[in-house]
């Protein structure tokens, strides 16, 4: 009994290693995907599952980066349109579109959400030595969203910093503005 438990634990720990000891390990695994014809990657440790694209329920008065909410086995989870979040035009859903379910550590608790992406590409092992710091300019997304530039097959993949891209506090705060601006807009109409 004890033996099995221990070995199970070992396997689990092994899986968790990339997340926990990101700095210590020589190489990490990244999930790469396509958004608006660009390839991005996120640390595989954040990824819980990949879900087929499906109908979403719109959330009224929510900012445009909220694509909607959906029912995942009884929990209602939000889906963030990653393109909008990165200030890119959003692509219409195709048969390769999907949601990447990620978990991000917030200030006090874990925040779970889906990321709407145009296609999932691959799981890539990128050694730390092949990761360059983000350039000070030349990439037109917010620099704090970028964890680094990973080199794979002689091409650069923008590795996103999920803690920044999926910062629940910041996202929630931005809704405050949307709500009140919508209100002012409406009252201006009325």
């Amino acid at each position, binding site marked *: 009994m004890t033996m099995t438990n221990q070995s199970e634990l070992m396997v689990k720990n092994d899986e968790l290693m990339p997340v926990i000891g990101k700095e210590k390990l020589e190489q990490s695994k990244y999930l790469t995907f396509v958004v608006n014809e660009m390839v991005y990657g996120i640390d595989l440790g954040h990824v819980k599952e990949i879900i087929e694209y499906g109908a979403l329920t719109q959330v*009224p*008065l929510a900012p445009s980066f909220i694509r909607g909410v959906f029912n995942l086995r009884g929990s209602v989870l939000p889906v963030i349109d990653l393109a909008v979040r990165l200030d890119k035009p959003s692509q219409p859903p195709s048969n390769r579109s999907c949601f990447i379910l990620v978990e991000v550590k917030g200030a006090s608790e874990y925040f779970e959400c889906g990321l709407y992406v145009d296609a999932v590409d691959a799981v890539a092992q990128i050694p730390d030595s092949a990761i360059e710091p983000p350039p000070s300019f030349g990439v037109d997304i917010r620099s704090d969203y970028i964890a680094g530039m990973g080199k794979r097959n002689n091409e650069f993949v923008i590795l996103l910093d999920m803690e920044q891209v999926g910062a629940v506090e910041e996202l929630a705060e931005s809704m405050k503005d949307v709500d009140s601006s919508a209100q002012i807009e409406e009252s201006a109409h*009325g």
Partner: protein
Amino acid sequence: MSENPLDIFVEESQELLQEMEDILLELEEGGDAEVMNALFRTAHTIKGSSGIFGFTHVVGFTHVVENVLDRLRDGEIQISEDLVAALLASKDHIGALVDLAIREEELSEALSHQGDGILQRLTGFQSTEVEGASAQAGIPAVVGGKVERESGPCVMTDQWHISIRFSEDVYRLGLDPAPFLRYLEKLGEITDVTTVFDKLPSLESIDPESNYLGFEISLTSDASKTEIEGAFEFVREECTLYILPPQAKISEYADLIENLPEEAELLGVILNRCGALTDDELQIALHCQAQLREQAVPDEASRLGEVLVKQQTVHPEVVDVALEKQAKVRAQHNTAKSVRVDAARLDKLINLVGELVIAGAGNQIQARRIDDEALSETVSGMSHLVEEIRDHALQLRMVPIGESFNRFNRVVRDVSKDLGKAIKLEIYGADTELDKTVIEKIGDPLMHLVRNAMDHGLELPEQREALGKPTEGVVYLNAFHDSGGIVIEVADDGAGLDPEKLLARAREKGLVDANQELDTKEIYRLILEAGFSTAQEITDLSGRGVGMDVVRRNIEALSGTVDIDSELGEGTTVRIRLPLSLAIIDGFLVGVGESSYVIPLDMVQECIELSEADTQESHGEHYINLRGEVLPFLRLRDVLSHQASEHDREQIVVVQVGTQKAGLVVDRLFGELQTVIKPLGKLFRHLRAIRGSTILGTGEVAIILDVPTLIHRAVGERQTAVNRPVLQTVDNEQGARLH
């Protein structure tokens, strides 16, 4: 179930302190011996359990309080206002000390100083022979003084006889009987111990964690009864203890035999064996005991006590003890009927029931599609059961509101003294049940309302006298169930609201437009607005114009409504209407564009068709004529920014929020459904107009609308349009205060 003993202690001490406070407040109006006993017991138990955990500060302080309570119980000191005040302060202090002990923090100087101050106040009431009195405290004596022993045949033994039966739970509470017995050896020589094991079940059904043993002990000792009792101090609550002195009366033994759970004959044999009684003495005792039984009417056990007193065999105190034991047995009986369950488990169950409701709705949709009669029948039978399970599951979380009402006794008492007003609190409907989560959240709003009623509602005694009202003002708290919800009323018999003054004030503050006409109800509702206060001067308690606004918002966050009724010169009633539960509500499903939304059913009054004639009639204005009434409406499609889709027939759902009626224009009506509320989480917490989401039978998510916010927004916009700068400053001020 593995409950942490410390958690139990925390819960228990809170309950006991609350009980102590309740009794003290009651005492001001006089109380009988039973109440005094109960009061004493609260302090005594807290002291005992704190001792187990080694909370010395609590024990030390409570010890003094206990001492005073003991003297109070014995009638050595009389109840007075000073004493009650000092004891209430003591109670608060014990609470603070317990908190401190649990947080494992050091006693701060301020707190210690405060404690000394209270002790100072208590000194006057304390007995001179502190130690003796306190040690005797709470330990029921089977024997009276020596005087009594003169009459009746005595047992010829020079040994103490101790009968002790530990409760079954004694091990679970972390106590072991053995050390108590060992301790006895320090007091004298144990000449005989007979173990009573007739409670011991058969080997298969034995629970190794339970105690089944009792002991009959003969002790040769010079110690006093108090000292012997002291040995069992910490296990007092968990055992049945009788101590008979050397040469006790045989009738006392008879009483002992009667009171112990074992068969009389068996006990007799044991007593005989351990040398407490000789054969002859045993015969006399059994005879005596049989006599007692005959005289006692079985149903009214208390009679036995009276008979014993009449025969002068038992000291009145002993009867008290017996009665106390009875009450305890009854209490134990009651607890046996209820089970303490971890709240998280309950939530899990209720969540699962929620899933069941959703799955059931899915089944119904499928069954309807298949259209098979037998299937439809079984499915509808099952959904009926699911509904019943839902109702029962929700009831598990229901608790009476009385407990949260009772704490206002203290508030009213303290505040009335501060304000120099004589105020009485009357509570009705304390046993009305409400979801625990709701109860936890209405405490603060209720506090605001009660304080408001005392501060602004009630007049000063002189004023009341001049008006021909009784000088004592009354604040009423009332709760009752009403059409699927609960109504809580906070009322006073004070001055009432003056609509004209309120309106003038609102105009002055710019909350109402100068030529805007409002009916009386609407005017009353003004006091719920932010930045509105009518009190001439700001007091500590209220009058900052934040309270009522916060009350309204808190109540609305619970999807409740606030309503005000008042009669000038007669008083004011604030009525809060709340849903019974926050987990599952009855909803009304509507379609707007391609989306479905849920409106809480209890707000829906009726549905009518919005004909083209109506819209033309109102010339693009957003109101219609509803049977002679003006009904303003909101087009959800616009408010929720949906794409305009052409529908021939729009529908109006007439909703009522408080006294405000409004129409919500939707594209389609789908009908009622049971809605399990799924929170949308932190991400959407700033998004108003949404209360949560639910999962429909199809698996699709539907958003639950926060109707009050939608309507307030519409009202706000109207006001903003009229007088924006003023409202914004008010908002800012309030924002600053809240942060």
